[in-house]
C-alpha cells in the first residue's frame, strides 16, 4: 500500500453537498452513507431505487483482435459463452486456484472489453491482462432496485431497456454513456459509465428522477442479503471459487487458464471447506472472524456478517469444514466476541428478489 493521498471520484463534491459521510475505501474517499442513513438506503433499494457512485471500481480497457484470447487465458470464466454486447462475472486466480480478484467484464464491442476489478485490485488485474487503466477518466453509477428502470425511463429510455447482463451504448440525460444490466445488490438494475465531464449532470438527473443516493454501508448489507461474495471476505488468495460455491464461474471447457490445474486437483480430491449461510434469531450483528460452532466444537469461521434490514435479525456467510457437512436447518452457534449466538444454517440468498 502506498501512503499517498486518497483518490476522489468526479462526484466527490456532489456527495459532500448531499451531506454524505465520507470514508476511505480501496484508496478512494467514498460515501459511507447519506443523511437518510444506511437502513433507509438499503430498504429503498429493496423497495424502490437507489444510486451508488461505484467509480472506485477499476476499469481496465483491453482492446484488439487478441483481446478475447488474452482474457480467456488470464481469467477463469469462458468468454466464448457470451458475445459482444454482454457482460460476464469472472475471476483472476493464482496458480493455487486462489482468487486474486473477482471481476465483471463488459464486452463493449467486438474487440473492446472493459474489465472491472475491485478498487484495491486494479493494479494486479492490469498486470495480468494488460490494456489501459481508464479508471481516472470515467464515472460509473449503479442504479439499483425494482423501480430502477421505471425511474430511468424519462431521462434514459435506452438504458432503461437494457437487458440483464447486456451491455449497450445509450444516452443518459442527453450524455453519451455505456450501460449494462449489472449490479451488486440482488435487485434488478443498470450500471452507467460516463465521462467524468458528464458525471455531475448525469448524477443530478438521476437524483431528480426520484432515485435516492446510497453509500457503501448499504451496498455491503445489500450484497450480503443477496449472498454475493466480497473479495477479502468470501474470496481471497487462499480461497478458491469452488470453496466459495462459485463453480459456475469456472470455464472448465477452456484448454488453459491460470489456476486450472489447481482447481482440477481440488475438484478431484474434494473440498475440505465450503461456504454456508447462517441466520440468527436476534438483532445482534454476527461479524467476520466469529467462530462457527457445531455442538460446541469449531466447524468454521464467519467471513461476513451483519444485521439484515429486511429480515430484522442477523445473517452471516461462513467457510465451514466439510468433515461433518452442515445441512440447511441445522443448529449452530456463532461465537461473536465471546457471546454465543444461536443460529441455523440456511439457504442463500437470505433475501430473494421479488418476482
Amino acid at each position, binding site marked *: 500500500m502506498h501512503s499517498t493521498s486518497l483518490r476522489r471520484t468526479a462526484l466527490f463534491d456532489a456527495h459532500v453537498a448531499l451531506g454524505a*459521510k465520507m470514508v476511505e475505501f480501496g484508496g478512494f474517499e467514498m460515501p459511507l*452513507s447519506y443523511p437518510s442513513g*444506511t*437502513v433507509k438506503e438499503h430498504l429503498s433499494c429493496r423497495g424502490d431505487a437507489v444510486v451508488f457512485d461505484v467509480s472506485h471500481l477499476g476499469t481496465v480497457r483491453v482492446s484488439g483482435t487478441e483481446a478475447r484470447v488474452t482474457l480467456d487465458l488470464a481469467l477463469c470464466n469462458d468468454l466464448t459463452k457470451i458475445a459482444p454486447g454482454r457482460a460476464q462475472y469472472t475471476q483472476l486466480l493464482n496458480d493455487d486456484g486462489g482468487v486474486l480478484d473477482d471481476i465483471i467484464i463488459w464486452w463493449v464491442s467486438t474487440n473492446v472489453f472493459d474489465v472491472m476489478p475491485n478498487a484495491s485490485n486494479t493494479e494486479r488485474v492490469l498486470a495480468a491482462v494488460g490494456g489501459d487503466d481508464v479508471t481516472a477518466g470515467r464515472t460509473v453509477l449503479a442504479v439499483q432496485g425494482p423501480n430502477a428502470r421505471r425511474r430511468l425511463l424519462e431521462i434514459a429510455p435506452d438504458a432503461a431497456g437494457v437487458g440483464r447482463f447486456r451491455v449497450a451504448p445509450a444516452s443518459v440525460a442527453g450524455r453519451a454513456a455505456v450501460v449494462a444490466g449489472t449490479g451488486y445488490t440482488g435487485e434488478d438494475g443498470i450500471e452507467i459509465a460516463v465521462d467524468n465531464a458528464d458525471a455531475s449532470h448525469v448524477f443530478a438527473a438521476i437524483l431528480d428522477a426520484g432515485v435516492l443516493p446510497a453509500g457503501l*454501508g448499504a451496498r455491503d448489507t445489500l450484497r450480503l442479503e443477496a449472498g454475493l461474495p466480497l473479495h477479502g471476505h468470501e474470496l481471497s488468495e487462499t480461497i478458491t471459487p469452488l470453496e466459495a460455491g462459485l463453480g459456475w464461474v469456472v470455464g472448465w471447457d477452456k484448454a488453459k487458464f491460470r489456476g486450472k490445474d489447481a482447481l482440477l486437483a481440488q475438484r478431484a480430491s474434494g473440498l475440505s471447506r465450503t461456504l454456508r449461510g447462517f441466520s440468527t434469531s436476534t438483532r445482534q*450483528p454476527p461479524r467476520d472472524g466469529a467462530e462457527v460452532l457445531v455442538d460446541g466444537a469449531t466447524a468454521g469461521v464467519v467471513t461476513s456478517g451483519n*444485521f439484515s434490514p429486511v429480515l430484522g435479525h442477523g445473517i452471516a456467510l461462513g467457510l465451514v469444514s466439510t468433515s461433518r457437512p452442515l445441512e440447511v436447518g441445522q443448529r449452530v452457534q456463532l461465537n461473536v*466476541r465471546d457471546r454465543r449466538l444461536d443460529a441455523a444454517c440456511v439457504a442463500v440468498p437470505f433475501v430473494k428478489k421479488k418476482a
Partner: protein
Amino acid sequence: MIVPDDLRYSTEHEWARPDGRKVRVGITDYAQDALGDVVFVDLPAVGKQIDAGSLLGEVESTKSVSEVYAPVSGTVRAVNDTLRDAPEILNADPYGQGWICELEVTDAAQVEGLLDASAYAKLTGS
C-alpha cells in the same frame, strides 16, 4: 451536533443526567452520528454494580461496534427496554427516548467530575 446545557459528559461520549441519587445515561449526538444507523443495543442487567469507566454495554451499527462505559460508579436500576426492538430511537433522540440506563450512584460527587456542556462541545469541536 446538539450538546444540551443541562447534561454532563464523559470523554468517551456518554451523557449523564443527574436526578438526586439517580443518573440517567446515554450516548451523545456526536456518538450516534459517528456510528450511523444503530441496529443493536446490548443493555446491562438491572442490579449490576459497575465502576466508573467500566463497560456498561455495546451499541452497534451496520458498520461498527461502540462500547458504552459507565460515566460514574453505581448500580443499574433501570434499562431502556424500548431499545431492544427499536434501537433506531437512539439515532433519532439520543438525549431523550434513546437513553440507555439509569444508575443509582455510589458517590454523587463523581458527577461533578464529568465535563460540562461547553467542555464537551470543545472536545468534539461542536
